[in-house]
């Protein structure tokens, strides 16, 4: 099974934003929003006064968006991609809130969560639009487990850098080469509290519900073996017998 990874040599990026336009075009993302971005940071060491950092969904390992989804509409696929199934998505926005990279958004037409899927949805099997269009070839995409792929070669020969938002604990797979600016991203809200609380609650329902069912089954079996109703009848018969014996005794004494 392939393990797809996107690698970015951000030092090459000249902020032409062709990757953003190409992605919007191929994936029918309405203008004004985008699945990918280029962060601009002021820098004296850059000839143009700014450093550029292209990015998109980081396709994290153990992604917080997947943990936040109550319906299983998003998941980490075996090929390394974090996927979304729109037919399962109820548009609650928990995953959007949970992503520390703000890589997700609510699609204004479908009303469901949307983000980079390496163009799997629009053009399966093809190179992602942002990679194909980049004029300086700063984005590289492929199977990191295939030693002959370009991705595997650059990962083997150059330093891999990951940017992680402060305190998020994210494990991104999107990799920058050698150096990138900014080196880390500011902390942000990564938890949807109401939906996050559902996890321990679901465990509670499982355990309490299981115990109740076990108790009811036990009671049902107990009643089959020895019915309380029958015991009531026996008690009533015993009482009746005792009272008639008492009556006879009183009559005898009289």
């Amino acid at each position: 099974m392939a393990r797809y990874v996107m690698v970015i040599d951000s030092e090459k990026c000249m902020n032409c934003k062709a990757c953003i336009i190409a992605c919007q075009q191929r994936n029918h993302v309405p203008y004004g929003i985008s699945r990918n971005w280029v962060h601009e940071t002021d820098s004296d060491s850059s000839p143009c006064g700014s450093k550029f950092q292209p990015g998109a969904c980081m396709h994290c390992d153990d992604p917080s968006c997947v943990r936040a989804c109550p319906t299983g509409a998003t998941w980490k696929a075996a090929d390394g991609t974090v996927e979304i199934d729109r037919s399962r998505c109820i548009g609650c926005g928990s995953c959007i809130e949970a992503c520390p990279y703000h890589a997700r958004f609510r699609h204004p037409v479908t009303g469901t969560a949307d983000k980079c899927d390496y163009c799997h949805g629009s053009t399966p099997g093809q190179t992602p639009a942002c990679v194909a269009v980049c004029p300086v070839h700063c984005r590289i995409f492929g199977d990191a487990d295939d030693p002959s792929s370009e991705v595997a070669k650059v990962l083997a020969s150059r330093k891999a850098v990951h940017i992680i938002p402060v305190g998020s604990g994210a494990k991104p797979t999107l990799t920058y080469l050698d150096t990138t600016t900014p080196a880390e991203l500011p902390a942000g809200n990564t938890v949807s509290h109401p939906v996050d609380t559902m996890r321990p609650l679901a465990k509670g329902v499982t355990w309490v519900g299981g115990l109740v069912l076990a108790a009811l089954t036990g009671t049902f079996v107990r009643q089959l073996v020895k019915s309380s109703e029958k015991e009531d009848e026996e008690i009533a018969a015993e009482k009746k017998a005792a009272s008639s014996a008492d009556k006879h005794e009183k009559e005898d004494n009289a």
Partner: protein
Amino acid sequence: MIRRHSRSAMFMHWFNAICWIFLLFSGFALLAGEMQPVGQWWRNLWVGIFGDRGLLVAHLAVGTIWVAVYVLYILLFCRREVLPFLREVTTFHMKSDIEWCMKKGLWLVVGPKRTMKMGIDPTLPPQGFYNAGQRMVAVIAVIASVGLAVTGVVMGFFSGNVDYAVSETVLQWCIFIHFCCAGIMAIFLPVHIYMAALAPGEGPALRSMFTGFVPEHHAEHHNPLWYASLKKNS
């Protein structure tokens, strides 16, 4: 025989039962990962029958019918049935209700003979139209139903609605409340089913949910306060 349930009440009971079971089962099947309380097999089973989208659509469709029929019932039978029912189930007599619940539990689990050996008189405190357990579950069911209906309507209408959008925080709280209400009912529903359909001595009460009538001796034994008030009024 004494009339215990009207035709409309019987219809609403069974309509409610069918909808509740389907909505509870399909609703749990919509959940995934650590939020799935039954297990992944449960989700796979239901998705296998309805498909991913089909399951959500079926849950929404049955939920909409359930809410619509209930709203109609409440509007049409508000004075005749709904308000008297609410008055009846919210009339608590704490001491005797707790005593009834504990003694009924002992009666079922350890039996009356052992209860007597424990030094406890197994005689249950007299009950009205509904016993303490029924009233407690009814109040929980009413609160959970209102919670489920309101949050269900909000989610059904606003989820994925691009024309009339609502804050995602509202939707997330709706999912949470919807899940809490369903979770509570998932625990109490089996108790109600056992106590009403399988527990010894409840046969006439179960049959009355189909016929509307209970034998006089059953009412006298199980609901003596209601029986006494019927006698007094007649």
